[in-house]
């Protein structure tokens, strides 16, 4: 089995990028390491698996093994220095608010655990406060997010655990979109738009995030410019953003919106599908909202049918790829509202359902 494990790892590490296939191979290798009870390998492969699964858009895999890794690391301090596990904790923690079935109490309990581990390892509050701010923003608790951003700015920090400067600026910019006037937010975002700071999430994430705010303010010209910049750099990032699709719909670029939506059709599949995921997350909400808005706007033009290649396990799949717009609209509307309700109930606010209202008010 050891030989098989080595061979699987060799195959997995043939991939340069964190692809879904690399995730599968690492998942298999991780299982094998568990089977042969090689704790050191399990820790090493596990950390790579967390990274590969997150970057390839399969965060549930990362979530499913991360608690085990923490326990293993705790029990085997001689095998695991704190650094890499704590570093990955930051990524994993921000996935939690994306799942509406995870309660706020559970999210903050995990965040507290991360905080304690950071403290124990001797790191300052700066990074912790920054992550409190990010989590609060994801939960739509803007005042608390602002408070923790200020606190993070004030804290003197060690640089070891801090995100890259581009990521920190992006997080602050995102918050400013909710707390500042649009003009101020644009000023804060300008260095990111101008690529003065860059990383795998910047500037592409900044372009995407500002678009709904520009649409709300009716700044279509500005939005057009930002969208063009987004479109130019979008391939450089593995994340998928829905905000640019909303811009395309608002600006009546329906073909482009469909092209962007066609890049990920793995959602809303039949439970019998081998690709089905029962875990509905924020991406599902955004996907459903985009499709609902698109169908609504196309329906306004008098068109009743549309061609689109959905996944063949999609609940409404039609082998001729021809769909009645009204049926798609009803389906995605129901899904959007149900998901918004579950997020809002969890968040105890209207942060997510407000996005629906804002989208239809553009």
């Amino acid at each position, binding site marked *: 089995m050891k030989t098989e494990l080595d061979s699987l790892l060799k195959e997995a590490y043939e991939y340069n990028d964190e692809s879904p296939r690399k995730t599968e191979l690492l998942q298999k290798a991780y299982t094998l390491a568990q*089977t042969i009870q090689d704790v050191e390998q399990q820790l090493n492969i596990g950390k790579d698996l967390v990274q590969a699964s997150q970057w390839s858009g399969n965060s549930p895999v990362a979530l*499913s093994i991360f608690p085990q890794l923490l326990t293993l690391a705790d029990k085997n301090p001689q095998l695991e220095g704190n650094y890499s596990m704590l570093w990955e904790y930051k990524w994993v923690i921000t996935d939690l608010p994306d799942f509406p079935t995870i309660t706020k109490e559970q999210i903050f309990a995990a965040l507290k655990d991360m905080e304690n581990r950071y403290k124990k390892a001797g790191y300052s509050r700066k990074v912790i406060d920054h992550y409190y701010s990010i989590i609060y923003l994801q939960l739509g608790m803007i005042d608390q997010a602002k408070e923790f951003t200020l606190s993070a700015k004030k804290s003197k920090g060690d640089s070891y655990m801090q995100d890259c400067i581009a990521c920190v600026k992006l997080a602050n910019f995102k918050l400013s979109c909710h707390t500042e006037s649009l003009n101020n937010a644009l000023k804060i975002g300008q260095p990111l738009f101008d690529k003065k700071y860059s990383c795998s999430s910047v500037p592409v994430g900044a372009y995407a995030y500002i678009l709904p705010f520009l649409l709300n303010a009716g700044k279509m010209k500005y939005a057009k410019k930002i969208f063009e910049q987004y479109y130019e750099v979008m391939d450089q990032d593995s994340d998928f953003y829905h905000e640019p699709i909303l811009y395309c719909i608002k600006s009546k670029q329906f073909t482009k919106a469909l092209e962007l939506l066609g890049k990920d059709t793995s959602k809303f599949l039949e439970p019998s599908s081998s690709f089905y995921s*029962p875990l509905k997350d924020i991406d599902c909400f955004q996907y459903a909202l985009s499709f609902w808005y698109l169908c609504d706007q196309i329906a306004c033009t008098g068109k009743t049918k549309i061609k689109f290649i959905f996944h063949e396990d999609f609940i409404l799949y039609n082998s001729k790829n021809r769909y009645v717009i009204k049926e798609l609209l009803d389906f995605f509307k129901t899904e959007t509202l149900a998901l918004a309700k579950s997020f809002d109930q969890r968040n105890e606010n209207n942060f997510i359902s407000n996005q629906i209202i804002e989208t239809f008010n553009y």
Partner: protein
Amino acid sequence: MKHNFQVDLSGMIDILANHLYSEDKVFVRELIQNSIDAIQLRKKQSDIQGHIHFEIFEDAQHPLIYIEDNGQGLTESEVHQFLAKIGSSLKRDNNKIDFDRNDYIGQFGIGILSCFMVTDEIVLITQSAKGGSALEWRGKSDGTYTLKNIDQKIDVGTKVYLKAKEYSSFFETEILTEIVRFYGQFLPVTLSVGDKSQTVNAEINPFKQQTSKEDLLRLGATHFDIDFFDAVPLFNPDKSSAGVAYILPYAIGISAKRNHLIYLKNMLIAESDTNILPEWAVFAHCIINNNTLKPTASRESFYEDDQLKETKEYFGVQLKNYLIELSKHSPEKLRKLIAIHHHPIKMIAIENEDFFRMMINFIEFPSTLGHITLPSFFKAQNSLNFVQDVDEYRQLVPIAIAQNKHLINAGYAYSVELLEKAAIYFPEWSVLAISANDMIQIFDELNLEERDEFFDFVNLGNELLLPYECSFQLKKFAPIDMPCLFHFNNHMKMLRDMQKTDDESPWKNIMDNLSSEIAPVASAQLVLNFNNPMIQKLSRQKNVPLAKALIKMLYIQALMLGHHPIAKKELTIIGDSMMQLIDLKTYA
């Protein structure tokens, strides 16, 4: 009021001499470089054959390296300007480094300082071609120097003397010869060490397009100590880069260190890991000379600019063209090459449709028909059924063969991606992923009488395996010597991982919430083969405790054969079942 920075000269020399370069031996390259530049300068006025000569004067404690060239030499003002002013160089105009000038290797005016890595004093005697008397310059590592005229008449050129500050192998003739050869063997001047007739210049020049493949391979074997699979000449359209890529005779991982020898104007600049070839070209080592890329200050690597990017792209195209040419004219050779370097070739094929269409006729996949290309498999089967997991493939092979069906093993890197691309580029190929679950769906069911007869047995199995979230089924399938098939879906894998979360962990509740969503779609199935004599015997077993023990053991055996980790609650099964069997035997 303006102020000038104060510079601690000896400290500056220490930084430049001891920390800029990664290796001590680089001082030899810097000396050769200065000589070459001086020779190039003199050649503009007169037709000379450049010659750089090294010699060692042995002395037990402080041996001395002597180097002379027949270059331009320096005048007194040039000595003050270029040897005493850090950052100043003969090759700089108006204080700007002129990267576009192709005739000089050095650019920064700091190379001579590297000699302080091995000596405390540099003695330089020079006679300028411009005339005037010969000069002697002595520079010390503390930042001071002296200059005096020499009455004696000497030939135009420069001689440098370096006395070893401590013992160093560089001051041994054999070692020095190797270093001089290493850096300068392809230079267009005569290089000699010891005796002036002992030249170290290479016989084979890999940068000339006329050099034969045999010579290139011979050169590669000497340089890398590898008998390469093949040699591919590389050159830029504007001839600014030329050289050879050597195809390795063994496979190498994508993240393995690249071994290249990169020359700038025929002088070795970088060895090992440079990015002169595209990332996917892991299967090649290269020897390349470039005349226009911009070296960094240490002259050990190049700036990552558009020119380097273009060169890299061009070399990438040439390597792809080489593979395409092989496919047309030497298909057998290409097959051998792909057998060795299948990973990088698959990687390029996934990214490039034309390349895919060409290479798909050569890339072989393991399958129940042996190692075979996709077109051949399709020809034989009219479809491309593949399994994306090696363990699952092994489990399904006997079942597929018994049903006269054939499967491709796509459990290796890039296989699934290639099959996905095949489905797009060749829609007529009917590419289908097969899992154990798909096989289970087509197994024969028991007839109604059999169902009734074994209803209690199946029920017993389901009750027993319920705590392990595994369903228990009795079906009929070939081959008869296969007692059961076990299948685990991905959700079950995830669920089992989530269930391993420590009870005390703050993540426990999170995992419980997610598990409750996943559980309805997580499935494990143990399907017993009613055609198998052992299973028939088991299913007819009237001794219920014995049947229970055997079912549980079959489940554990299936888990272990599938290389699945055994959960805590499953660990006790083996011991308990064995105990049960012993008790039954004792009782009997």
